């Protein structure tokens, strides 16, 4: 059980009484990038929220271990302190709470007392630069009145500052223009190239393969109707790019029949 990695086994999850995830097995290795692709409604976001501990998602069975420790049943904040990070598809606004205050509080919570204020400031400004973000961002209220692109940049800023062991990026590419997508890619790659982030394992959840052109996946899983129906290398993403999900759907249906 002490095996490293973010390990999902036999995970079954219901939302409001309806089973959405019907037995998921998936491993995110340290320092590696796994992609989870699938059409809308296949259960990708349910997996992300369940791993992070959203109370709306009812676990019917299975387990999720982070470097050997079971995290299902833990409060969301405990999972975060264990090293899990979720980049939200629709991050919540927190009016009245400045970005600076929020990221400082979050960093102190997940890595207590590890950085003196001066070094923390330096880290923040470095990451703002990588993400091509204006330092004026720090004085704004968290996600309050942010554009879609600004919200995703703030998620990436938090990722870069919290330096988690495992990061789940839920549809981070959706709604982004080319520049913002480029900034996301640069940020993730910068983290992966750094000492603090070289062992971070990524689970990139996406509908479209385009983010994988910026952050190449080591392994690609295809999810349909609450199950992983196909797993392959980076070429699987290209296949979806060319042919969409229909062919895989037929293939799976054919396999079952």
């Amino acid at each position, binding site marked *: 059980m002490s095996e490293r990695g973010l390990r999902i086994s036999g995970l079954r999850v219901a939302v409001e009484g309806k089973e959405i995830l019907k037995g998921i097995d998936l491993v995110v290795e340290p320092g590696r990038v796994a992609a989870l692709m699938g059409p809308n409604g296949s259960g990708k976001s349910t997996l992300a929220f369940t791993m*992070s501990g*959203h109370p709306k998602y009812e676990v019917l069975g299975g387990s999720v271990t982070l470097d050997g420790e079971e995290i299902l049943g833990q409060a969301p*904040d405990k999972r975060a302190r264990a090293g899990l990070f*979720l980049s939200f598809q629709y991050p*919540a*606004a927190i*009016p009245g709470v400045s970005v600076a205050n*929020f990221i400082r509080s979050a960093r102190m*919570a997940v890595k207590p007392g590890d950085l003196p204020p001066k070094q923390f400031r330096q880290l923040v400004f470095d990451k703002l630069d990588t993400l091509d973000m204006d330092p004026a961002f720090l004085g704004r209220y968290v996600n309050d009145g942010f554009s879609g692109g600004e919200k995703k940049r703030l998620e990436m800023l938090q990722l870069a500052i919290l330096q988690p062991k495992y990061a789940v990026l839920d549809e981070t590419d959706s709604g982004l223009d080319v520049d913002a997508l480029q900034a996301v890619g640069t940020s993730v790659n910068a983290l992966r190239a750094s000492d603090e982030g070289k062992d971070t394992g990524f689970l990139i959840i996406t509908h479209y393969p385009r983010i994988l052109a910026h952050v190449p996946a080591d392994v690609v899983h295809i999810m349909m109707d609450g199950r992983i129906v196909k797993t392959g290398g980076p070429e699987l993403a290209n296949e979806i790019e060319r042919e969409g999900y229909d062919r895989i759907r037929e293939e799976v249906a054919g396999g079952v029949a």
Partner: protein
Amino acid sequence: MASLSPTSAPAGATAAALDALIDLGLTEAAVRREAFAIYEALPAPKSPGGKWKHDLRKLDLGNLTVSPAPILALAEPLTVPGAIVCDFATARRDHAEIFGPAYDRALANETKFGALTRAFAPDGLFISIAEGVRLAEPIRIGIVAIEGEDALPYVIVVAGARSQVEIIEMAGGDTGGRLVCAATEIVAGDDARVSYSILQQYGPQTKTIATRRAIVGHNAEVHVAFAAIGAQLCVEDIAERAVEAGAGARLTGLFFANADQHVDLVTDLLHVVGSTTSDTVVKGVAGDRAQARFLGNIKIAAHAHGSDATLRDDSLLLSPQAHIDSVPALEISANDVKAFHGATVGALDDENLFYIMSRGLDRTTAERLVTLGFLEPAIARFPSEAVREHLRSALGAKLG
């Protein structure tokens, strides 16, 4: 100042007690008797009824024992030419030409309990800023309620033309179930800038009832900013009148009530003439079994054309037993005016809390962040950073 001691002071909010105090040396007998008659004639404000536990009509003032002690104090002495800060007795003697007309306005008499303060306050604090004098540093007033005595702090502020002053009232102390009945009167001359901030942090047994009145002159601006953190019962009745063209009245109200606290906040922004502005922001939080009511009134008089009024109030409930009634009322009797009102009432949002917790912060911390964030737009309106920091830390401490 009358030399009274609590043991010799007659008790009770009665004409006989007032007469006895006057015999003991209180000056301005006629003014006091007139104010007391108004106190007796005016009805107590109606309680909202329903489950509201406090009722001002049933407030027992049979034991009213007026504190003779200097409940108003300056944090530091003020020696700026053109600025006067002194007690009423001194003002009456040395600055009669300014104090007299201000005192005679009798703005406190507009409410029942303001009239009570005017009738019984042994003395008061007079602040006068001469024409064209702009104070760089705020004037800090401390109101310290003393155990076993009722406090009647009475403050009169006169800001001359083109003057500028920031006044910070820090009110605290535990009166062990006694009353603090306060009156503040502000008169701002042409082009004057006045801000008056109140940080109320009385102990959990205190009842406080305050009347604040401001008259805003030509192109002048007055900002009354009020924060209620303490006291068992906190009643604030704040009215600002824009009486000449170009006058701007600002009002900020902030309260955080928990346990069994009650807050009753009434604001009146009156556009007496046209081309005046008013801007009211109220943010209230109630937790546990706390109850609060906010009556936000805007009145634009007939012919006050070109008035511009905004009223924004938001309420946050931290528990299912907490209750906030928000009752805005816009009474507009002129054409060609701008009037905006927006209000929300909500509870803590689970998605917000989940988002914050997903960053490693526990639920209590997440709730504190959201609550302080909710109040921040009101905190941000307090004029000085020192006050804003004080507020954030006092509110943070109360949130646990």
